[in-house]
């Protein structure tokens, strides 16, 4: 007798009750959201899938580093766009990477154009800098005309603003408030030959900047490192190509002599200033370092930004889908209706064919469905799993596959009874044999789910995840719920009596066969 035969069914039932209880706690943890996270196709919204590619004319391959940097840039754009619940995720890696952006609402104006803009990296001299809020013009200033109050200057609605001369930007600079919603999104066209008015990425500083003196492609490398002497915090080192080195030495000779803030330069990524260090001395060798009170993480981020500039990434819009909330609602109810019909059909079939044993199967299906529902809620909160229509379809298909496990087990029990075993022995022997079949078959399903999940993007992924999840639930429920329940069933005197409603009636299972009747006499 194997270990499973000795295992006490009561213990397994207690075990699954505990697991179920823990899952309920996890799903309904007080204070957290208790609803499944619905995908775009069920609640409406816009989804844009972008495929990153190296900009034309650049050589090399797309690194994970650059993809992550691109995702960061897009996240900044989307968050700055001012929509709640926007999501940016990356699926796949390397040449197959796809960036999936999901925002609520249908066709938010200009979102796609905002997303596909190639981000530029430039170095620009600072002409004026100040706190990122409106600056009141000193009333004593004799040059200020009393008829023009700074409030009269229209607040910029998008950044950066570019102009041929810095004067044009100056009045707007004064009135600019970087915390105006929607300003810090970046993603607007950025002409390196023009002057620019913009904010720092966090909004705390605003700048008027000169045309770029170095462009991102002239940075050949950048690393975050600790100074040799160990004093001070992290720093970021920069290497420039020969063109960049010449321009750097020219700029640093001029700028380092000027007073603050004109000795500073802005490192501008995607239209926003990521860092604005100052030149302490002329830099002649094409190698520079930015020192400051960097934390390790900040230094790494900045060096990543600088490396990105060398190989700008273009984004292609691979797919953009937008679904209205009413269609989403329709799809959700249709999906749930299909699930309900499917479940009822299977329940009816199981009850007609397996009678009392069918009840065990129906209970098991209900427990499995309960697990799935709880996990969808819990995983939605913890790992951001979203339920899509394809996912619902996957769950409905899983009803059949889970019920198949019970069919395999029950038919085995019937075979054992035909062989003359008592019901109690039959349920255990059948389990030992059915168990292997179930594990092998479910392993193949799980394999399919994992391969699909790892190698696909978009809706296929959501489906694969649901399929894998339900396969695991299937095994769990069969081992810890169905089997112990059948064991109790097998021990009951009513089932052993073999009435026609038990589903394991010996009389019915040998009827019509001379061999079975003969061997039984």
């Amino acid at each position, binding site marked *: 007798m194997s270990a499973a035969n000795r295992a006490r069914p009561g213990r397994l039932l207690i075990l699954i009750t505990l697991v179920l209880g823990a899952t309920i706690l996890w799903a309904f943890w007080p204070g957290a959201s208790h609803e499944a996270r619905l995908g775009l196709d069920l609640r409406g919204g816009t989804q844009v899938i972008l495929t990153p590619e190296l900009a034309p004319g650049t050589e090399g391959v797309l690194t994970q580093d650059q993809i992550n940097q691109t995702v960061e840039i897009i996240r900044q754009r989307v968050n700055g766009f001012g929509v709640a619940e926007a999501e940016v995720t990356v699926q796949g890696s390397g040449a197959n990477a796809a960036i999936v952006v999901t925002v609520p609402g249908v066709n938010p104006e200009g979102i796609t154009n905002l997303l596909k803009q190639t981000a530029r990296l430039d170095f620009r001299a600072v002409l004026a800098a100040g706190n990122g809020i409106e600056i009141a013009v000193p009333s004593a200033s004799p040059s200020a005309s009393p008829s023009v109050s700074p409030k009269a200057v229209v607040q910029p609605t998008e950044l950066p603003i570019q102009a041929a001369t810095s004067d044009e930007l100056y009045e707007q600079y004064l009135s600019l408030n970087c915390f105006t919603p929607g300003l810090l999104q970046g993603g607007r066209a950025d002409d390196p030959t023009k002057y620019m008015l913009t904010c720092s990425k966090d909004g705390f500083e605003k700048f008027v900047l000169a045309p770029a003196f170095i462009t991102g492609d002239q940075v050949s490398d950048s690393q975050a490192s600790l100074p040799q002497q160990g004093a001070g915090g992290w720093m970021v080192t920069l290497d420039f190509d020969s063109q960049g080195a010449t321009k750097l030495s020219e700029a640093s000779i001029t700028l380092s002599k000027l007073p603050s803030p004109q000795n500073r330069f802005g490192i501008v990524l995607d239209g926003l200033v990521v860092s604005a260090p100052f030149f302490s001395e002329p830099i002649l060798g094409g190698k520079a370092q930015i020192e400051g009170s960097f934390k390790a993480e900040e230094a790494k981020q900045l060096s990543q930004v600088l490396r990105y500039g060398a190989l700008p990434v273009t984004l292609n*819009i691979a797919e953009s889908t937008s679904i209205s909330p009413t269609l989403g609602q329709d799809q959700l109810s249709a999906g749930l209706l299909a699930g309900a019909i499917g479940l009822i059909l299977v329940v009816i079939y199981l009850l007609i064919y397996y009678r009392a044993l069918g009840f065990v199967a129906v209970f098991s299906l209900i427990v499995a469905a309960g697990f799935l529902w709880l996990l969808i809620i819990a995983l939605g909160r913890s790992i951001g799993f979203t339920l899509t229509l394809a996912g619902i379809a996957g769950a409905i298909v899983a009803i059949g596959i889970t019920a198949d496990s019970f069919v395999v087990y029950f038919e085995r029990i019937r075979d054992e009874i035909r062989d003359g075993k008592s019901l109690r022995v039959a349920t255990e022997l059948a389990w030992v044999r059915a168990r292997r079949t179930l594990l092998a078959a479910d392993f193949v399903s799980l394999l399919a789910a994992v391969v699909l999940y790892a190698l696909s993007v*978009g809706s296929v992924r959501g489906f694969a995840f649901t399929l894998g999840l339900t396969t695991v639930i299937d095994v769990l429920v069969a081992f810890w719920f169905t089997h112990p329940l059948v064991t109790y069933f097998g021990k009951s005197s009513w089932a052993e009596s073999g009435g026609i409603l038990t589903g394991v009636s010996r009389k019915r299972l040998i009827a019509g066969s001379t061999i079975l009747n003969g061997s039984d006499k």
Partner: protein
Amino acid sequence: MKFNEVGNRLYTGETSIDFVGRRKLWYFISFIIIAVAAFGLFGRGLNLGIEFKGGAKFNVPSVTSVEDARNIVKNAGVETSVIIAVGNERLEIQTPPLDETEIETFISKIATDFKVEPGLITTQSVGPSWGADITRQALIGLGVFVLLVILFLTAYFELRMAAAAIVALLHDLLITIGVYAITGFEVTPATVIGVLTILGYSLYDTVVVFDKVKENTRGIIAQSRLNYRESSNLALNQTLIRSINTSIVALLPVAAILIVGVGILQAGTLKDLALALFVGIAAGTYSSIFIATPILVQLKERQPEIQALARRVHARRVNAGVDGPEGMKITGSPILANQLMQAGPRTQPKRFTRSKRKKS
């Protein structure tokens, strides 16, 4: 005879369908189906959705007739389009690829003519290379999966069973794709999902059948009552009821998706997915019985020890006067169940329950 009695007789072998022996018939049927499928595939080709060829799709909640809709779309400046009425209240308009600005203008133009709010118009726009990417990923996924499954099935069963299972799997995939070619149903990413799910299901079914074959043929070399072919055929008959039941149970929910998808939504994920699944699961059940096991038997019968077994079984029957003496022919004659009952591990004496023992 009642259904349950058929099941009982199938189990003992008193009623036996010669699945393995009549394999040429099954192969022929499959050959015809696959030939038609291939004809459809290379003749008509697949009706690829915009996800695969690029384009834009608009879903408009409107009761306007398709004819009027065509004029509205033409007025909006798009010459070629496909317009389908979805349900009673929606229209689906497919156009060639449009860029983002064109889409915005198009929506605002047709929204006025259809008298709907632009926000209620659902859009989907796909770049032409994206579909190629998805397809390539799906094919890579298929390749990796087949490789892993061969490794797993070889470890769990043996190489020949793995090979037979994969042949059955490809058979199912071909038939499913063929049905799409012949019916002209649109192929979308949801269809691809459906097809990929068949991978798992078709093998699940085959694993269940092969597990019984493996059980019946364990220690088969050590006896001389049954040859490999008869043992496997008995396994097929014994699992037949189970195969029918698992297929019905798997098809019922899929049928529900299909009914709701076609009947209520009329287009979209559910329909695309369910049709592929329905055809695939049906083909999967057929192939695990009619294709996988006969191929397995053919492969096994090339092994010298299985051939030797067949000769021994034959010689024994000739001695007993139950079979003709001609040649080394491997017979597919119906077998008596008690021959199997005496062979292998299932030879424990019959036990009676306590209650029955008292009575007798």
